């Protein structure tokens, strides 16, 4: 595990709260084993998939249905206590990092698939349902759920909604926001509301659009109506070995410039190939400086035609080996290497930071050169895995936490990589979210006014700042800085400088 550097919670003044009273309310509403207060048990919830941030929550609750979530959130509102929602705990930006004075609402027991409506191409699921299980339920009918983050075998659909998760195939199919029709949400004051609708278009403001990707700051999702897509008639996958990332990057640009939209184009560099090889023996081309995984799907004649084109572009750009998956088993093997890459890096380094940034695809060679320069200057190894098609980079910054100063050096390199992304007109996160980890970079990407405007949206949903406080935004503004019931009028309002929502 990564070293425990306890995150700095905003140590704002908190109103005295009656935690015992709140726990009593939880015990009335939930089964005894669904309220966790034992310190050792609580500690197992201190971090999500980003283990370098750790805070032990005051209490963990495991609701089994939407009504219980409503009761929990309403009780939190009544007692003025902050809460954080968590799904499978696989997030990579510490978005589900608990509060030591707050409640952690875990949806891992809400995992029923309530409806699979094949005729209308949709399914209704609870937030704890695992992403891949939606596809498993739809597959017998010839359908699937498109968002496929690498953690799809374990991450929850509720978490996908919070993070607006993507995945390898979002190049062609878009992010979670493109695959959600409606949400049932418990608002921070405990009301249950429906956002969006089962129809394809809903008049009025797109509140569901605001909610998807809000990283748990606007409420707790309790039901999700997802779109199901027809499984494509034909899928073709190839694995191409290149001498270096430059040639591979060139091939990516050419393929897309030619008007081909692959379902996915993924790139891995030599170091990440080495890790994946050790972890899952995926048998990638030996001696490759980079590999591309390209997948095409759609009607068989179209796939057949464009697949030949893709192979040609790969060879034209120096691919020394192009391997085509003959069947589902071989395709799975190709993907296994890519999808296990993050965790597999644990085999070649005791600790690592998974970075997540976005650049325009065309800037790829330049940015990669800059990253290797950063790595050379600092002596910090960086492995690269990316969704090459849409310019979403996942540099993996390797370090050994037991070496003095190593954490700081790694974090510096990791931060500098984001500066490089921003300098090339990119973004500080592609799909992992801001969470607690990237709060400090928000100011590099947005102006004060930008952040204030976003804060107003948040205040409309969560005026008391009780819903996953301290995440996404550097400093809470306008609508109360700290969790806890606000008493009296906010000084800014009093001074006539701000409105209260």
């Amino acid at each position, binding site marked *: *595990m*990564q070293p425990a550097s306890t995150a700095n919670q905003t140590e704002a003044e908190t109103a005295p709260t009656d935690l015992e009273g709140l726990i009593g309310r939880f015990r009335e509403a939930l089964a005894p*084993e669904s309220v*966790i207060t*034992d310190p*050792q*048990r609580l*500690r*197992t*919830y*201190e*971090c*999500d*998939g*980003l*283990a370098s941030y750790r805070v032990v929550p005051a209490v963990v609750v*495991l609701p089994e249905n939407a009504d219980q979530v409503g009761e929990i959130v309403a009780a939190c509102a009544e007692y003025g206590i902050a809460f954080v929602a968590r799904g*499978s*705990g*696989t997030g990579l930006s510490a978005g589900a990092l608990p509060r030591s004075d707050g409640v952690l609402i*875990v949806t*891992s*027991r809400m*995992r029923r698939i309530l409806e699979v409506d094949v005729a209308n191409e949709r399914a209704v699921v609870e937030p*704890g349902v*695992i992403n891949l299980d939606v596809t498993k339920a739809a597959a017998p009918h010839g359908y699937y759920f498109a968002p496929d983050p690498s*953690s799809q*075998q*374990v*991450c929850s659909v509720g978490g996908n909604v919070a993070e607006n998760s993507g995945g390898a195939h979002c190049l062609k199919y878009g992010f979670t926001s493109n695959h959600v029709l409606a949400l049932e949400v418990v608002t921070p004051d405990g009301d249950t509301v429906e956002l969006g609708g089962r129809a394809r278009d809903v008049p009025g403001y797109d509140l569901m659009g605001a909610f998807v990707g809000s990283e748990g700051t606007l409420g707790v999702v309790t039901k999700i109506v997802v779109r199901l897509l027809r499984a494509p008639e034909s899928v073709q996958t190839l694995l191409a070995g290149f001498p270096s990332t430059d040639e591979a990057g060139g091939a990516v640009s050419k393929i897309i410039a030619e008007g081909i939209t692959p379902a996915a184009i993924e790139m891995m560099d030599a170091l990440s190939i080495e890790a994946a090889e*050790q*972890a*899952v023996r995926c048998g990638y081309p030996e001696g490759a400086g980079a590999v591309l995984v390209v997948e095409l799907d759609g009607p068989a004649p179209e796939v057949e035609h464009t697949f030949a084109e893709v192979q040609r572009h790969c060879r034209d750009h120096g691919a020394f080996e192009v391997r085509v998956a003959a069947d589902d088993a071989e395709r799975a093997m190709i993907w296994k290497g890519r999808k*296990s890459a*993050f*965790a*597999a890096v*644990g*085999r070649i380094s*005791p600790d*690592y930071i998974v970075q997540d940034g976005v650049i325009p695809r065309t800037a790829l060679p330049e940015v990669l050169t800059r990253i290797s320069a950063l790595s050379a200057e600092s002596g910090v190894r960086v492995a690269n895995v990316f969704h090459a098609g849409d310019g979403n980079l996942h540099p993996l910054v390797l370090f050994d936490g037991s070496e003095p100063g190593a954490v700081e050096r790694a974090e510096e390199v990791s931060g500098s990589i984001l500066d490089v992304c921003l300098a090339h007109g990119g973004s500080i996160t592609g799909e992992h979210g801001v969470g607690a980890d990237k709060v400090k970079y928000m100011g590099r990407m947005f102006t004060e006014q930008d952040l204030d405007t976003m804060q107003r949206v948040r205040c409309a949903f969560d005026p008391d700042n009780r819903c996953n406080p301290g995440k996404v935004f550097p400093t809470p503004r306008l609508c109360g800085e700290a969790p806890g019931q606000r008493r009296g009028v906010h000084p800014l309002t009093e001074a006539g400088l701000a409105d209260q929502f």
Partner: protein
Amino acid sequence: MTENPIQSASEGAFDAFHTPQRELVDDCVHCGFCLPACPTYELWGEEMDSPRGRIHLMESGLDGEPLSGSMVEHFDNCLGCMACVTACPSGVDYGSLITQTRAQVERRHQRGFWERMLRSTIFALFPYPRRLRALRGPLALYQRSGMAELLKRSGLLAKLPPHMRTMESLAPPVRRAPKLPERVKARGQRRAVVGMVTGCVQSAFFPDVNAATARVLASEGCDVVIPPAQGCCGALSEHSGREAEAVKFARGLLDKLHAADVDYVVINSAGCGSTLKEYPRLLADDPDYAARAEHFSERVRDVSELLDELGTVAERHPLPGRIAYHDACHLSHGQGIRSAPRALLREIPELELSEINRGDICCGSAGVYNLLQPQAAGQLGDRKAENVADTGADLLITANPGCSMQIRTALERRGESMPMAHTVEVLDASIRGTGVKSLSER
């Protein structure tokens, strides 16, 4: 090794003797890929009953948290099925961690009176083939005299404590036991000499499996050496943290079965095989046995693994029928053997092989887990039985005696039944041409 706890300098859950290794704990990157693989996470959906959560608890213990009742409860809840090891992309050696932790729990944690009694009873009985065999007579009488039926109908059985009830329900129907010779000659040209480990439960309650193993190996050109009175291999003890006892059994087996005289050591019980392969770790501290353990373990093969390695020579006769193959955890996750048994079964003409949905999740047997944690084991058994019944197969194949007892009992609870056989029994029936009925109507 001594029975007295060795106090470590620092406070915390563990003492200095075989402490769960910090380096192994540090290999976990908290990605959560193990969660959906874990049977107890599947049941309860809570972090501390997941592999990642248990590793987190071990880390707390290393950081100074005491070995509390709640910590022990979550370690005890682990089935040791090793599905998480298969799922883990970071290669965390959970097997070593949980074995080290269980040994610490056994030495340092005082269990309640009834819990202790139950454990002593189990471990005074199961690792002793002779004592198990002595039970066969009374058990057969109990089953055939109508007493079992009477106890069930009178409602008296339902009044027994859950552990006793489980033990009663799991007892397999007793069959006549053919005695195995000490050496079985290879048929045709000899291709290898193999020593056979006969197991405890296997030899007492499933003697047909051992007989079939010897016949199949002989048909495939192996001289089979079967030392008598072998004793237990130590698997049950090791998987329950009874380290000293496991070491004693392991030494005993090494004394009986001289690996030097054979090309391979073959085992047909998945749980035992997994431990036999771990002897070097178990006996690492023993200067007299460490090297022998290494030499021995290199030769250990599950029977399906060996047959697949050697390749088929004996003719297979058709066995028309539909079978479902159940992966025993200690074969698939513990030893990584999944394709060999399937490949062997697919070689049999006219035999159709179905897969069991969610086949990688444990059936709940897990050594003596179903005796110690009857409730969780029962729930897992029910889920497994449902998936097994859904295959609509005529015969269920599994390579572990514990699994077959557990699944048979779970199917009975649903008012269903399915004949069961070990992989080698199917191969034996095909080689001998005795037909599928020889397996399903016994």
